[in-house]
């Protein structure tokens, strides 16, 4: 191409340099620094918050053993929220892609619209709606669906529900994008070949929407696993996730090495899970 001759090979690099330099300095370097911090030990006789560089990998084992419950909970909650979000979002994305007609653009805007009200305000709104002073609990109690002592907030249920709600648009948009790309004629063809609705879905629609399923589940699972806001607002001390631990290690206990070791373990665990998942799902082209 003539453009490459004229500008030479350096054009792409010049375009990349500022942005990639920024990402290198403020993303890669901090991650390396985090790895260093994670093996530090307290200065003997120093103040709290003073650490020296050692190579104490035992930090990782200590941090994990001490917090394995919260680790487990983070992954269980995140997987539950992802599965629920997928179940809720798939029919919705399908409806928008195939059944909305002229309303399509409007409905897409409506999916994103919740983002425009601060997610903290929305989470707190849920807390108040599901709380003792909201209308849901008294209604359920008067219908004897829940006992007098049962509460909906401060529970694992509330935390998972909050995460499901907050990450739902992240699930719906990629699902919509790949369902919308399906040629409706392939579905008709399947019907012509005597497949019933369910078989068509299982053999045609779902496989074709798989890239959206993979992207949506990742966009939900990754932030959910590291989340601590839902657990802090809607949960109780018994529903603490690893994010809550990292947060309090950093700010309340100024235990930087443990916080760093936990962050690193979380990131590694997520990357391993995500890699296995992408391999299994068979779509390597994500970005």
């Amino acid at each position: 191409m003539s453009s490459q001759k004229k500008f030479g090979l350096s054009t792409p690099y010049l375009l990349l340099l500022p942005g990639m330099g920024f990402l290198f300095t403020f993303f890669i370097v901090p991650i390396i620094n985090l790895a260093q911090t994670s093996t530090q030990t307290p200065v003997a006789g120093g103040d709290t918050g003073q650490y020296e560089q050692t190579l104490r990998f035992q930090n990782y084992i200590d941090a994990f053993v001490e917090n394995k419950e919260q680790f487990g909970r983070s992954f269980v909650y995140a997987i539950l929220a992802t599965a629920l979000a997928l179940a809720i979002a798939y029919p919705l994305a399908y409806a928008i892609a195939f059944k909305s007609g002229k309303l399509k653009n409007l409905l897409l805007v409506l999916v994103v619209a919740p983002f425009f009200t601060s997610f903290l305000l929305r989470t707190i709104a849920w807390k108040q709606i599901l709380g003792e002073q909201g209308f849901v609990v008294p209604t359920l109690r008067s219908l004897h669906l829940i006992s007098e002592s049962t509460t909906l907030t401060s529970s694992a249920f509330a935390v998972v529900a909050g995460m499901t709600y907050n990450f739902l648009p992240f699930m719906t948009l990629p699902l919509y994008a790949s369902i919308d790309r399906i040629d409706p004629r392939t579905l008709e063809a399947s019907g012509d070949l005597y497949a019933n609705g369910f078989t068509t879905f299982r053999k045609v629609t779902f496989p074709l929407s798989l890239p959206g399923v993979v992207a949506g589940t990742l966009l939900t699972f990754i932030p959910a696993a590291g989340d601590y806001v839902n657990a802090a607002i809607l949960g109780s001390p018994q529903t603490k996730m690893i994010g809550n631990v990292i947060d309090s290690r950093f700010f309340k206990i100024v235990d930087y090495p443990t916080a760093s070791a936990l962050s690193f373990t979380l990131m590694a665990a997520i990357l391993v899970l995500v890699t296995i998942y992408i391999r299994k799902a068979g779509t390597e082209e994500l970005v």
Partner: protein
Amino acid sequence: MRKISRWFQRNLIRIYAVIAFTYLFIPIAYTFAFSFNDGGKSNLIWKGFTLSNWQNPCGAPEVCTALGNSIKIGFLATTIATILGTMIAFAIGRHNFRGRSTTNLLIFLPMATPEIVLGASLLSLFLVFKINPGFWPTVIAHVMFCISFVVVTVKARIASLDPRLEQAAMDLYANEVETFRRVTLPLVAPGIAGAALLAFSLSFDDFIITNFNSGTMVTFPKFVYVSATRGIPPQANVIGSSMFILAITIVALGQFVGRKRKVS
């Protein structure tokens, strides 16, 4: 009876969509309703209808300080991230070069890293260099996590362009700069605008990374989080609701302008 059941069957998925949207909008309706609550400082129980919160959104002064900070950070971070990200998107979308897959990986990684890790690692870097968390560290943090989203959005737009349009411009004796300025850039512009809007909303709503890097500076989400335990002043609901209305208006205007252009 049979008619009704058939109608239900045919419209099942539409009924489902209505329920799903109701679910999405319950907390927003709640936030909006409670912006009219005469609740004083703690907005937990409905006490009566008032317009005073809307007439005086800065009645709780901390709310407006926090909002101001969020807007300033949002604008700075969006501008920087959009410029840097668009440049990267053009490099990836329009050029073949060594290290392309590494670049793609480096763009993907920040999106695949939990926010708490991004926030914690950046804070630990600032601590090493004895930089106090505050306004500029927060701007840097926001640019960092917004860049990838800008790149992905703009890249998608570039990929969807018809290359024949640029070839046509060249055939009509436009040089490269002219072609870029008069054909490529206007065609990519909606993608860039969308990316900027996305970056702003990500920045404006961010809590976790901000909480790590902002020190004592309060942003709007931080204000909401901190005051959650003792009750949020209804003015916060006013701001949440107006942001919602504002964003919907911008999107609607964008659609309208887009449609008008297509017609003319």
